[in-house]
């Protein structure tokens, strides 16, 4: 750990952190409403317009861990790390086609979670439980990784050799986060996202202008990175372009991740908090702005190579920042990254809390909660989820959270048939969908585990493919076969609580 303390950086950092903390508590009065109602606490009363939703979802999806880990991957392997680009571009045509239907049906039927929708659509609280458990399970390590993003920033600013420094700072930051999420619900991250996203954009623009000027332009940066990769051994493959063996892995990772993105509870929560289906559509058009920022952030990996930073892994970006900027501005960038951890961590814990309350607690523990009790359970769950994530980071090796998050993406994708197909057709039956989910979960986890938790698997005759997609295919096949068999046996179907018109916009009659 760094022995010296960067006091100026700490000072600027603390200033922004205090500002945001105040905002977090003030947020409870914003668009004032009764926060003892779960849809007010956990969905901001579904009142967020286009701009707020843009900031909220942008702050939610492009996280601190992204800012740290994507350039770190690019620094190590090169072009392959850029799969995040196609991934976050092709996600939005999908969002445009699918998520407005989800918004409409959830709004019409007062659903707060994707699992609520699944339960109403198929009349099966078991299938809803599967969707809810998957969401909670995938979210926990994701929150933990946000903490990791914060931790590397703290370490870069230094503690004068104090051994537990980063952990103490982390616990303090998290206690603050937990308190304002508890009091303000989704309004807190929505308000903080404004500040955080603007700061991230300032950081990216400054990095783009200042660092290439110091390093002799983008041509020189790419050349330096290319040379560094050529000096590396042939395996594992690296380079400025994809090696032939990486092509199918790159494309299938992009596709699978794009499909999984909006199934995550934090993305669904941000979407359902929008004030109309058109707000969701407009955001499918506007959110890619963040993908430009992401692409430029990924380039920081090459800049770090050209700047000869002396560290590796997650420390690369903080080191590049400290090396390239005056210390006060480094503090500003670190604050942007740390706030970039708080926003998604808050939304993730709220999304998980909504799932636990509505799809685990209500059907299996207490079916007769009044709204105030419901919102209390959610608030307490959001605390527990965060404490759990903190414990992850403090007590378990970093590898554990990274591996679980990777598996989390594979798991999340297995809720695709129940949720996304369900928005368009009711042909699939709930039990076969559950069987498909179980198949996909088992197959995906096993394939990944057998190779020491890797995201891709070598399919004979095709090449490396994203395991999440392989498992999804098996999942769909099982669900389809099961449905055909049940139909042939003329088994009874449970009632559908949704109506065909629920999926369309209210004002449009076509």
């Amino acid at each position, binding site marked *: 750990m760094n022995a010296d303390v960067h006091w100026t950086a700490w000072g600027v950092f603390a200033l922004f952190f205090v500002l945001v903390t105040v905002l977090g508590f003030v947020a409870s009065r914003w668009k004032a409403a009764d926060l003892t109602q779960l849809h007010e606490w956990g969905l901001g009363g579904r009142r967020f317009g286009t701009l707020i939703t843009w900031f909220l979802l942008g702050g939610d999806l492009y996280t601190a861990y992204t800012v740290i880990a994507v350039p770190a991957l690019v620094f190590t392997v090169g*072009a392959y790390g*850029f799969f995040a*680009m*196609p991934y976050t*571009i*092709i996600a*939005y*045509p*999908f969002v*445009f*086609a699918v998520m*407005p239907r989800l918004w409409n049906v959830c709004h019409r039927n007062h659903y707060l979670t994707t699992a609520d929708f699944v339960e109403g659509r198929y009349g099966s609280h078991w299938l809803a439980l599967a969707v809810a458990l998957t969401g909670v399970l995938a979210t926990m390590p994701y929150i933990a990784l946000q903490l990791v993003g914060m931790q590397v920033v703290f370490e870069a600013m230094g503690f004068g050799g104090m051994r537990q420094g980063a952990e103490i700072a982390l616990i303090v930051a998290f206690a603050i986060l937990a308190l304002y999420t508890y009091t303000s619900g989704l309004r807190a991250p929505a308000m903080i996202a404004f500040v955080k996203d603007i700061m991230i954009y300032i950081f990216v623009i400054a990095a783009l202008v200042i660092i290439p000027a110091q390093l002799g*332009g*983008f*041509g*020189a*940066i*790419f050349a330096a990175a290319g040379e560094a990769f050529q000096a590396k051994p042939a395996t594992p493959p690296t380079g*400025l*372009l*994809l090696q032939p063996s990486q*092509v199918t892995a*790159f*494309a299938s990772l*992009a*596709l699978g991740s794009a499909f999984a993105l909006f199934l995550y509870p934090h993305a669904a929560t941000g979407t359902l908090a929008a004030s109309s*289906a*058109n707000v969701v*559509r*407009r955001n*499918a*058009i*506007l959110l*890619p*702005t963040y*993908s*430009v920022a992401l*692409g430029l952030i990924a*380039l920081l990996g090459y800049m770090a190579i050209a700047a000869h930073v002396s560290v590796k892994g997650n420390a690369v970006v903080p080191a590049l920042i400290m090396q390239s900027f005056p210390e006060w501005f480094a503090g500003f960038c670190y604050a942007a990254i740390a706030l970039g951890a708080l926003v998604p961590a808050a939304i993730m814990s709220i999304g998980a809390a909504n799932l636990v309350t509505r799809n685990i607690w209500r059907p299996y523990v207490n079916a007769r909660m009044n709204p105030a009790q419901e919102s209390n359970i959610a608030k307490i769950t959001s605390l527990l989820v965060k404490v759990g994530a903190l414990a992850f980071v403090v007590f378990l090796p970093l590898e554990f959270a990274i591996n679980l998050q990777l598996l989390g993406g594979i798991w999340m994708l297995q809720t695709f048939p129940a949720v996304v197909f369900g928005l368009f057709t009711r042909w699939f039956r709930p039990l076969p969908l559950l069987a498909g989910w179980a198949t996909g979960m088992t197959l995906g986890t096993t394939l990944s585990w057998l190779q020491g938790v890797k995201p891709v698997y070598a399919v004979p005759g095709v090449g490396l493919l994203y395991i999440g997609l392989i498992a999804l295919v098996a999942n769909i096949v099982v669900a389809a076969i099961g449905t055909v068999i049940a139909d042939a046996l003329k088994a009874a179907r449970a009632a559908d609580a949704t109506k065909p018109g629920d999926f369309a*916009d209210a*004002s*449009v009659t*076509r």
Partner: protein
Amino acid sequence: MRRFLPLLLLVPYVALLWVPFYNTREPVVWGFPFFYWYMLLWVPISSVLVFIVHRGSGHER
């Protein structure tokens, strides 16, 4: 014609998932190899395509 407009949503998938098409160095623009600026360029193109589909759908009135 309007019925087929949503098919535009598929274009980014073809453009970005057919990786061999853009996994090349030339032409270099502003120091950026093709692989990189091609992907960056597809962000606005994809947005415009979704915008066109949205306009044509009649949801915005």
